[in-house]
């Protein structure tokens, strides 16, 4: 099978659409997953702390 123009077009128009939709879905689910809310909020707040030293626990 040669990889000609028509095959490439067919591939991008079918598979291309679905994998982009699937990836968007994954991202949305990840962003809105309830248990992710707390780490996100912590991360957003944590950068505002002012201790300018690495943590060496």
């Amino acid at each position, binding site marked *: 099978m040669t990889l000609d123009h028509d095959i490439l077009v067919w591939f991008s128009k079918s598979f291309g659409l679905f994998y982009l939709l699937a990836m968007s879905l994954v991202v949305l689910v990840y962003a809105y997953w309830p248990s992710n809310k707390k*780490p996100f909020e912590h991360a957003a707040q944590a950068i505002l702390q*002012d201790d300018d030293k690495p943590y060496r626990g």
Partner: protein
Amino acid sequence: MIAQLTKNERQVALLILLALAVVGIAMAAGGRHDPFGAHGALVLLAAIVGSFAVISGYYAPEPPESRLDSYYDDPSKAGIILAMIWAVIAMFVGDWVAWLLVNPNLTFDAGWASFGRLRPVHTSGVIFGFGGNALIATSYYVMQRTSRARMPDQLTPWFVLLGYNLFCVIAATGYLMGVTQSKEYAEPEWYADIWLVIVWVAYFVLYLRTLARRKEPHIYVANWYYLAFILVVAMLHIVNNLAVPISWGSAKSYSLFSGVQDAMTEWWYGHNAVAFFLTSGFLGMLYYYMPKRAGRPIYSYRMSIISFWGITFFYMWAGSHHLHYTALPQWVQSLGMTFSVMLLIPSWVSAGNALMTLNGAWHKVRDDAVLRFMMVAAVFYGLTTFEGSFMAIRPVNSLSHYTDWTVGHVHAGALGWVAMITFGAIYASVPWLWKREAMYSARLVEAHFWLAVGGTVIYVFAMWNSGIIQGLMWRTYNESGTLAYSFVDSLVAMHPYYIARAVGGLFFLLGAVIGLYNIWMTIRTAPQAAPETAADRPVLAGGAVLQAGE
């Protein structure tokens, strides 16, 4: 600087410099009278200077263990100064190029000063010299803070920073000698490209190693943007620069691609350079420095993640909007157009997220020019992406393409967004890095701010006007069905706008010069013995020390 390296690192540094010197000698010998040989001499010189520096500090005592109690910031400091020096040089050349378009005699009959050679010195100088150094410097700063971990070693950050600057110098001096592979934003020839790959891989690995040491469970979103910048630029750079040199002793090479494939590869690279160099990395900057400076967390963390993936997915497909009405298949053009329009959503979500973060802190924006730099950057980011999505629509592009409208769009993004956010981040970090209360002069920051805003507005409006007039003149027909204006007619019409642009650019340049002076004076004035606040002490083992306001 050498005193901060461990014995082992000093030895490795010498080995690297030795290898560099050998490469330099081989290039100089193989290249002889070719510019390749001149670059060999330059590489050799860099290696010799570096070796002297390492040897002179070689017997200094090793750095104390206590260094591990602080972040490693010296490379960030050096990177910021380098960025500002590049800014002044490259914007000076930019303004020179602008005056050249007003008066073509300003080349003074020298080959190296012709438009075609100075222009890439400007574009590479601002994008890679100024922007790149600022990105490296701030990324070092941000990755350590957000991970609460020090960089894994002292040598790699210097290798990346200095190696990168060697690349920039090779690029700029090459253009002046006429060395170019004539791909826009990817002009440097094969040997410089190979060197950049080495430096860039070291940068990527350094970033990952620092993140691997992180003490925060979640990787803060700014790091995602910086990492996307590093990873995607590596990909783009390697693919677009695949080429075969005509010999080992020559600067000239031929690209692996030709014809429309070459054009598509180049603009896949070019547009994603806009996306991942001029946008993603600077968004990383925005997501750290703006909340930090405003003292407020990012408005919606979720949205910052969603727009991150939106920008990453969509930009990849948008490059073909640079090739409307060309030999590129129509459906590829339409694909690029569609993705460009969709790009508006994540772009505006980012800009809106930034502005909403400031909502409630407008009094700070009013009083603090540094925060105002960042706010203006977010506004221009919104504006430029709206304009870009619009220009990507094929019929609109038929008017804007080849005209100064594109140049106006570029500088709305470059001056209004990239340079503004960078200046904001730099002014924020300089007092933090050098442990000063504030910048040397708040009034000079204020002056810089207004020069920058004024210069940008003049520049962008001049180019919008000029571009649209140009575009309309080129498509005006008279009754007999022939073009109404000659090209020279349109040149004459552009002349006043070119003067305005060059003046606006001069304002912008002056602002950058003031900024460099202000930073220099901040560093030079002795630190006030600032009372050590509770926040300045290390976090004790076990660590949950609550800060005021938490």
